[in-house]
């Protein structure tokens, strides 16, 4: 045994509490700028690789498959499909989230959903009024059934 005596009396155990207040700015980048400007206009954009013809959400300026540079952004159709649902209950409040996928797009959006949305449902985003949008995902209030 490398330490011959261990403390058995918990009142003798000393510790010190500290916290680390950290604050960051996360740069949205070129693809994020396009995506979040789209959100402000009530559109969901995907990046599309010309070479392998695949589209991605979240969008990127490079292709994860072939590593080509991506310059094309396409608007996804008006509706997505719910493939997974999770629900947290806090008292009587239900906080529901879904993974929403879009036709022909790799990836998707995880966001809150209306109370009656189920897996398999087609959904569309409900945006905040234009003047209240900030250009991030909180501009979408939730997804509702189409």
């Amino acid at each position, binding site marked *: 045994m490398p*330490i011959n005596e261990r403390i058995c009396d918990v009142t003798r155990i000393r510790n010190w509490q500290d916290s680390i207040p950290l604050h960051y700015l996360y740069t949205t980048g070129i693809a994020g700028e396009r995506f979040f400007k789209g959100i402000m206009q009530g559109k969901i954009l995907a990046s599309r690789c010309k070479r392998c013809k695949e589209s991605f959400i979240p969008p990127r300026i490079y292709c994860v498959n072939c590593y080509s540079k991506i310059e094309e952004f396409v608007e996804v159709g008006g509706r997505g499909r719910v493939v997974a649902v999770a*629900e947290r209950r806090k008292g009587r409040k239900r906080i529901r989230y879904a993974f929403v996928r879009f036709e022909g797009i790799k990836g998707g959006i995880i966001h809150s959903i209306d109370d009656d949305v189920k*897996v398999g449902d087609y959904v569309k985003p409900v945006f905040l009024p234009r003047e209240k949008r900030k250009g991030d995902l909180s501009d979408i209030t939730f997804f509702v059934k189409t």
Partner: protein
Amino acid sequence: MVLKRVGIVGIGYEGFRPSLPDISTREMMFMAASRAYEMASVDPRKDVDTFICCTEDFWEGWSITDEMVPDQIGAAQRPLCTVTSDSINGIANAFMHIQSGLSDVVVVEAHSKVADVVTKEDVENLGLEPLYLRTAGVDVDMLAALEMDYFMRAASVSRANLDELIVLEKRNGLKNQRASYGMVLSREDIDSSESLVEPLKKYDRAEYAEGSVVAVIASEDWIKKRKLDAIYIEGVGWSSTLPWYDGGMVEKAEYVERAFKMARKVAGKSYTAKSFDRVEVDDTYSYKAFQHLFALGLSKEDVVEGVKSGQFNKGGGSMGAGNMIEANGLYRVLEAYTSLENEGGQALVVSWRGQPTATGGVLILSG
């Protein structure tokens, strides 16, 4: 060129308890390392060429924490590096140090002093992508619950299948002196347990535990010269793939599939998951265990049967011993090592870096 064989000659640990309040992180590492050195009959100040520590600053509550690693494992003024990932990646690096001829003896350490992290959920959530997940209000439990729901539908895995795994592993944990969370649990207990985020229940997620594991890894020449016994590393692989929410697979863990393929290539043998006497697989979440087992090429029937007959995680896995963050890989190696030392045979170790990653490692060991 024939590459050197690499073996584990000693493995020591301290802890495996929900909390170790009387010793500091560094003291815990010192105790685990001292035991491993005793077992391997090595003097770290003379016999070890390189040291590797698997650690993440946010779990330590201390940036550049690796700067504070050397002393307690006997590595002062010696070559040491940190691998910021699961400890299977640390072992993979040790393997390469030896095969490349850089070292004859390498020490790999990983630990969890997670009870000291007062706001664990803050560290967990800081791992989430900020622009597309955090701004949508997603946290780690929500993300896991969504993955679980998506996976269970895609792979036709039922609540009953998951319950069976949890009940069995908790019971296996009871037979393992190391496992703090071993217990007799019924399906009803799981059913009536707290729902974190539906469908994720309290028992679907392994509780955290504290501990340190240290492995002494050496070349076969050195092992033979010292006339030591060893458990040999036949293959090692690791991979990072696209997470499911970015378009990656959900029905099986692609990173495990790729890591297993790499490990088989390194071993030069066409193993299947059924070739092994012992399979230690990441089960930090109940559904992830299934996802990882499917990635090894096992069918649903194979997995369900294997769970029933207790083929996987005979020591209780993380459900029994707790989630030891970066030390999860080394914990599974310790379980496999103990079994191979006593019973011989071959073991497969599968590890995952944890939420929200799609990163994992695979190790093939022979006794």
